[in-house]
């Protein structure tokens, strides 16, 4: 395990930093022009907001970015000083800390707080607390749990579409904007193209050697988080696909001497990209993550509101665990995966709770070994580097011995 091998990130991935900065600059420009800003949780109707000329920013994305850049502690500590417990989700602590610090950094202060009860058990109380601190209107959407395909063909879908219509009404009343169906169709189409491109890119990771690694996929999802329905997202994924395609044609892996192909289950540990590098330097490359895949949703422009409603309803954490496991098993086979790294996330109980049953089924049915890593996605104080590297060494050594 001493071999230190080259590992790198893609040319196109390196452009993400600028894209994020442009996005926040534009959001502030909009704010200064008097246009509305919505703070949203992810998997909310972003395309619809753009169609309504409302600019979405996502405190979850902001927290991930702050964590990755080493800027999060100020906000976490601000929230903690105000009495928010360290055992609360770190994204929520960051968002609250940012709001309590005056909301004067990257994210412009909101005119609307929008969330859906579709993936996370903290969203609603977090958003309610933000609404009280920031004194802005709050829209909470409901998304019933989806157990089967049939759920999407009955009242659940109508119910969700109806809420989107209520959101349109609220926006028209509050912000004097006018909803335009043509505009929404255009946004839905762009969002669909971006997702299609991302799925094509992910599919190319089945190639050996794998052309795109974990540090790439962790960054490259950004346009699908808050830029769905924009030309920027489409252009980014076109460029990325071209680069990945080229690597595949040249048989060039993202790391030298690919020895192990791994899957990573969970949100990324944003402050520990070095951990991904640690794997890569030992010949282990991440080729698949349910998290990366989760951002892509094909939308049907002939049914724009229904498509968006379906996306909100079927986001990865709002569907039955059986469906998730089935998909994971399918991907383990398709991507020739040698081992699974399971990130048990202190902050995200929704993701972490079913991990053991998932891992055990994967292990039993497909004989895939797994390693559990415990940390927090955004709070660097919960990370024990030496211990985690020790576990990784032992795991890779056992893969080697198999």
């Amino acid at each position: 395990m001493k071999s230190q091998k080259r590992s790198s990130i893609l040319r196109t991935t390196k452009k993400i930093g600028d894209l994020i900065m442009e996005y926040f600059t534009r959001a502030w420009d909009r704010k200064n022009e008097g246009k509305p800003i919505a703070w949203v949780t992810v998997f909310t109707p972003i395309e619809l907001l753009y169609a309504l000329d409302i600019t979405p920013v996502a405190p979850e994305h902001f927290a991930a970015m702050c964590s990755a850049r080493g800027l999060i502690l100020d906000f976490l500590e601000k929230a903690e000083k105000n009495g928010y417990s360290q055992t609360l989700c770190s994204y929520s602590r960051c968002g609250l800390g940012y709001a309590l610090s005056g909301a004067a950094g990257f994210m412009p202060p909101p005119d609307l707080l929008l969330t859906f009860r579709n993936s996370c058990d903290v969203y609603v109380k977090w958003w309610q607390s933000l609404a009280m601190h920031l004194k802005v209107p709050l829209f909470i959407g409901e998304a019933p749990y989806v157990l089967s395909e049939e759920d999407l063909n009955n009242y659940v879908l109508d119910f969700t579409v109806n809420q989107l219509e209520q959101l349109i009404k609220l926006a028209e009343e509050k912000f004097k904007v006018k909803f335009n169906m043509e505009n929404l169709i255009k946004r839905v189409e762009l969002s669909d193209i971006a997702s299609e491109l991302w799925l094509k890119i992910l599919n190319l990771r089945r190639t050996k050697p794998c052309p795109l690694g974990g540090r790439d996929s962790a960054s490259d999802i950004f346009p699908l988080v808050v830029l769905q329905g924009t030309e920027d997202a489409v252009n980014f994924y076109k460029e990325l696909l071209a680069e990945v395609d080229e690597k595949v044609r040249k048989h060039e892996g993202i790391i030298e001497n690919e020895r192990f192909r791994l899957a990573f289950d969970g949100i990324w540990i944003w402050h520990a990209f070095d951990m991904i590098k640690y794997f890569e330097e030992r010949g282990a490359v991440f080729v698949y993550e349910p998290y990366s895949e989760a951002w892509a949703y094909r939308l049907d422009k002939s049914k724009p509101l229904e498509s968006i409603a379906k996306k909100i309803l079927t986001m990865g954490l709002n569907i039955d665990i059986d469906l998730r496991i089935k998909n994971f098993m399918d991907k383990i086979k398709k991507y020739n995966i040698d081992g699974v790294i399971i990130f048990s996330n202190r902050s995200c109980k929704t993701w972490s709770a079913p991990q053991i049953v998932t891992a055990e089924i994967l292990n039993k049915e497909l004989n895939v070994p797994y390693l559990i890593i415990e940390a927090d996605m955004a709070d660097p104080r919960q990370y024990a580097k030496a211990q985690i590297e020790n576990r990784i060494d032992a795991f890779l050594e056992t893969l080697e011995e198999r």
Partner: protein
Amino acid sequence: MYLGIDAGASATKVVLIDESERIISYAIVPSGIDFMEASRKALEKALSLHNLDLNDLKYSVATGYGRRLIKADSISTEVLCIARAAYKLYPSVRTIIDVGGQDSKAIKIDKHGKVTNFVMNDKCAAGTGRFLEVMSNIIGVKIDELSALHFKSTSPVKITSTCTVFAESEVVSYLSQGYKIEDIIAGLHNAIADRIYLMASTIGFEKEVLFTGGVAKNKGFVESLSQKIGIKPILPKEPQIICAYGAALTAKSKVSKRKFG
């Protein structure tokens, strides 16, 4: 002659083996703050104990928390070293529970000695030797007196807190209420046994079960853990050097691989 060094968080162990994989000498010294110095001392001690010559050394492997900080021909992880040693010494063993100074782990191996699963507690002091060190300081007894006192206990107290810091105040409270020291000690042993039992249960206890690591020298704790899991474990004569022995076996295998490979 082959050398295995286990640079543990609390103690550094070295084992020297011969061509027939028999232990010819070993030594255990405290790791202190300088792993390099500790490993040098331990090696010197092991060599001089049986008048061995360093020039006969063919290969060395380092393992343990400080493995990257000491000199050796190559490194390996504790999981693999423990598994290798366990398989060599006790081929019927399928589960190994190792309790060290700073971490504890459970390892599952198949009938060929291959690791099929492992689980570690390395973030929390409860369930490790550190827990006992902290507690024995509070009670005011030496760490090697714990075992004898354990067997005098008639009704162990219940330590409910899973956190070392909170458990500390529980112990203080029991002391001030006049509970017998031996009952507190047995209660502490049961508490670590509970923690380790929970951790190891995630991979299951397949027979035979082997206990290793420095804490396995504490017979009182061994009794607590055996009762908890309901299986009588195999206990090596010197459980603290099993990992270093595995490193020495790894060293030998590296050389034979080199010869034939």
